[in-house]
Every structure is written in structure tokens, then in C-alpha cells.
């Protein structure tokens, strides 16, 4: 071994830094086990949606009840379970895993800002989570309508709600992964206890939940009243986008102050 190093170097810009970190993190968070387990969950939602669609309507004429059933199913299975759980698994892992296993140092001790690393983590999580959330939620909701007239609105609403919900949850859970070790456990507690249960308590609780805004999106696009929801499409989009942005900013601040192993 003898050293003869003469590397030429340039400043690493934010876009390049983000792309480099994304390239590493997306390979770190994807595993066959995760994809299989969460893909199976999505498949179950689609199959159950198809069963729901056939059993509730049973070939009956199209009606608002079928649309409601479809939207309600997309909300109850997709937005309550699939979207937050899938986002949690990948987003909490994106920086949480590398922090826990000690590899974060290989991205942290670099002449780069902290924001690109956080944005890359969120982008990696969204990339993997999006198809796993959007496809089953939209298909499951659509199947549950038994394809009655205007059922496309339910599918579109479910798709939009799942997509924006996935982005917002992913950003939030990237932050969670930096705040707590074993972030998945904390995240599940949050999803089940707050997003799942507390939201059913009324309007005020719903205002403080991501699910409430995702559900508003579904409700407005599908034009179906799912209860509680009182705010409009723009409000839902703005709130979900704002939560995403604030989470990323807080995660950046947290990353800069982190004790890295």
C-alpha cells in the first residue's frame, strides 16, 4: 500500500448532493421483505375492495350508497392503514436506519448542507411508498363501488388523497426517524392512537390529523360527504403541503444538531 492521492475537487451543489444521497438511501430502505409485506397489505385491500363492491351492491342499480361505500372503504383502509403504515416504514427508515446502524456518518461528514440529505430521504421514501399506497387505495376504493356510475370520481379522489397523504406522512416520519430511535414503534402508536382513534372524536381532533385533510381531499374530489370534514379542497392541499414543508425544515434543523454515532 502506498498513497499517491491527487483528487481534483469541486463544490457539491444542493441538487447534486440531493441526488447522491437519494441514490444511496433508496437502496438502503428497499428490501424484499418490506416490499413483500406491504405489497401484500395493498393486495389485500384491493381484493377486499372487490369483495365489498360485489357483496354490498350485489348487482343492484348504481346509487349514492355504492359511491359512499367505495369512498368510505378507501378512507377506512387506504387512508387510515395503508398510507400511514407504508409511509412510516420507509420514511422512518430512510434516516432512522442509517442513524441507528452508524452509516449516517458517511453522508453527514461531507461538505454539503443538511437540507439535501433530508430532502433526499423524503424523496426516497415517497418514491417507494407512493405506488404501494396509491395503487391499492385507488383500486380498492374503485372496486368497492362496484363500478357504478361516477365511480371514477372515487378512484380519482382516493388517488389524490393517497398521493398527497403519502407525501405528508413521509415528510413527517422522516422527522420522526430523526427524533426517536425505534421510530417505527412511535409512529405506529401515533397512527393507531391519534390518526385512527382520536380523529373519530370530532371536528377539532380531525383538524389536527393528517388523515382528516387527506379524507377531505377524497371527499371533495369524489363529491361524497364522509362526515366531520368541513374544509375545502384548497385548504386540504395547503395544509398537507405545509405539514410536509415544516416537517422537512424541522428535520433539517434536527439533523444539524444531531449527535451522530
Amino acid at each position: 500500500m502506498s498513497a499517491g492521492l491527487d483528487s481534483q475537487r469541486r463544490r457539491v451543489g444542493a441538487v447534486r448532493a440531493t441526488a447522491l444521497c437519494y441514490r444511496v438511501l433508496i437502496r438502503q430502505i428497499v428490501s424484499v421483505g418490506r416490499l413483500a409485506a406491504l405489497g401484500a397489505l395493498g393486495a389485500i385491500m384491493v381484493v377486499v375492495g372487490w369483495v365489498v363492491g360485489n357483496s354490498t351492491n350485489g348487482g343492484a342499480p348504481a346509487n349514492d350508497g355504492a359511491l359512499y361505500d367505495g369512498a368510505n372503504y378507501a378512507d377506512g383502509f387506504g387512508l387510515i392503514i395503508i398510507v400511514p403504515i407504508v409511509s412510516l416504514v420507509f420514511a422512518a427508515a430512510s434516516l432512522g436506519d442509517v442513524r441507528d446502524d452508524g452509516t449516517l456518518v458517511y453522508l453527514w461528514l461531507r461538505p454539503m448542507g443538511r437540507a439535501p440529505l433530508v430532502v433526499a430521504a423524503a424523496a426516497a421514501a415517497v418514491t417507494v411508498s407512493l405506488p404501494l399506497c396509491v395503487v391499492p387505495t385507488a383500486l380498492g376504493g374503485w372496486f368497492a363501488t362496484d363500478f357504478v356510475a361516477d365511480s371514477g370520481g372515487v378512484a380519482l379522489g382516493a388517488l389524490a388523497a393517497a398521493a398527497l397523504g403519502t407525501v405528508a406522512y413521509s415528510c413527517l416520519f422522516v422527522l420522526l426517524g430523526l427524533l426517536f430511535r425505534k421510530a417505527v414503534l412511535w409512529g405506529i402508536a401515533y397512527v393507531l392512537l391519534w390518526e385512527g382513534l382520536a380523529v373519530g372524536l370530532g371536528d377539532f381532533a380531525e383538524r389536527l390529523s393528517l388523515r382528516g385533510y387527506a379524507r377531505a381531499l377524497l371527499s371533495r374530489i369524489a363529491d361524497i360527504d364522509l362526515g366531520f370534514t368541513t374544509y375545502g379542497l384548497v385548504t386540504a392541499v395547503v395544509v398537507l403541503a405545509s405539514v410536509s414543508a415544516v416537517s422537512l425544515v424541522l428535520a433539517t434543523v434536527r439533523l444539524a444538531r444531531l449527535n451522530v454515532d
Partner: protein
Amino acid sequence: MSSRPRPVPAPELDVAGDDPASESGTDAAPAPPAGMVEVHGVSKFFGDVVAVSDVTFAVRAGVTALLGPNGAGKSTLFRMMCGLTPPSRGTVRVLGADARSDRDVRGRIGLSPQQDALFDRLDALEFVTIAAATQGVTDPEAAARHALGIVELDPDDHRPVSGYSKGMRQRTKLAAALVHDPEVLILDEPLNGLDPVQRRRMIELLEDLGAQGRCVLVSSHVLEEVARLGSRILVIAQGRLVASGDYRELRELMDDRPHRISIEADRPRDLAAALVTSGTVVGVRIDGDVVVADTLEVDRLGREIAPLAKDLGARLRQVIPLDEDLESVFRYLVERR
């Protein structure tokens, strides 16, 4: 570094050693240390646990070893130098800047951390290429191939690093640490897991890097390992800097301490009395057939024990040192403070 190592007030120690006041150990008020790496009055607490306590030193170009037992605070010091964790008190500067807040200086440091973890889905070339790219190297793959060549790893071995041996992982980490040609290399236990041949080559590489004007900091808990590095040594124990010097000086210091020897023989009482009478021991204790002797002259004891036993008609069964482990050396240094 020509003076004897001081086991005690190390706070103003200058390892680079051209500060006459600090080298002579005078009581003059010390100036803050100056060097490529400067650690001044640094302490680090984790809750009630003191990991590092009021450590001051400066390191310039060349190879410097941090020697200390596991848990002594070496890795914590390295983490503070790299900005991975802030000191609770004091200041740490690398090339005049705080790596925690100064983005540019982070690009002038190469770190090989103690932990084995790598991005396990990547192969070595990908791992080192990513390291080069994130450091802003203009041709990351070429630099990565070169760095892997330096540590004698095959860049075309496309197995993921999860399948690598510990030694190969160490060398991958080292390649990633030096791929961007850093001025300061911080290597936490880099010789762990290497076989003797790799170890010798790694030591040659580190010496080569130091000779090129880089500041190479290496930690180890193995004294003989550090001896082969031929470097300056900072001895860290219980979070404190307890001694410094080169290996020879440190070895002499360690030889000054009382050594405890276990001597198993028949007629242990007679043998103990003869040892005390001969003046080769400063204390003895008898434990069954075993004489436990404290001596300041371990070589003389070694020479005289057999003739003494022969004169007494006693048969020696075993003579073993009880405190040759590094822990006991560190304990001695700490207690002398």
C-alpha cells in the same frame, strides 16, 4: 518530542512539540495549542457519565496515535474532532474551524469510524465512489478505483460489502476516508480485523500519508500495534490525557512502575524471605504455594529468581507477570496523576 513523557499534567501538552514551555513542563501559563487539530479544555458528558475530561492537546502533520483501553474516550474525542458531537466544554478545531458548523472543513477530513457498518447493499467501488462524489471529487469513479487500489482491494469485485470480511470492510472504510485526499485523517481502530500482512502494509501506508504532510490520527487499545506505527502517542484513560511521548519513552515510563509477579514454587515462605533479603522486591504476599511479589526491577528479578530457588533447594513451577496487560498500565498512569 525528545523529553520524557509526563504521566501527569497533560492539559497543555503539545504533541507536535515545538513549544518550549510545554515541552519543559514549566509552570508558565500555557498558550492555547496550535496545530492541524486543536483540542482545548475539552470535556464531554453523557448525562452523569464523564466520557472526556478537560483534555488539551494539539496535533500537527505526521502520525499520532491515541492509545487507551476500550471506553477510555478515544472515539468520543474523534467524534468531537469531526463535529459529530459537540463538546460539553472547551473547543475543538480542525484546520482552524469547527467541523460541526463549517461545511468546507468537513471536506478536508477523512474519517474511518470504529463501527463496522457500511452501506451493505453497495459494492466497494460504489461505496467509495459515493464517498468521492459527496466530497466533490471531479471524477469519483477514477478516484475510488485509485483509493481501492491503495488499500489493495479489487474495484471490480462486485459483491456487496455485506459479504466482506472484517479486514476487507476496514480497508473499504479506509479507501472511503482517503479518496478525496484529505489533509486530516482520523482513523478509529483501523488495524482491527486485519491479518499480520495487511496490518504491516496498513502501517506503512499510514506512515507514508503522515510523511506527505497529512495529519493522521489513529486510535488503538493495543500498545504493540502503536509501537509498530512508530508514531507519537497520546495516552487516554478514563477520559483524561494521562501521558504522551513516543513509544520508547512511554515504554520506559511503564517500566518504572512496580510490577506484580506470581511465583509458584515449593517452600514459598523461604523463597519469599530470600527475595526480600536480596532486595529485588518491594513487597511480597504468600498465597498457598504462590508468592506474589512486587518489584521495581523486573529484569533483575527475572535473572535472580532461578539461582535463589536453586540455593534454597526449591523447585520453581511457574513465574508469570500479573499486570502486563494494558489496563494495568493505564491504571498505574491514572493513579499517578
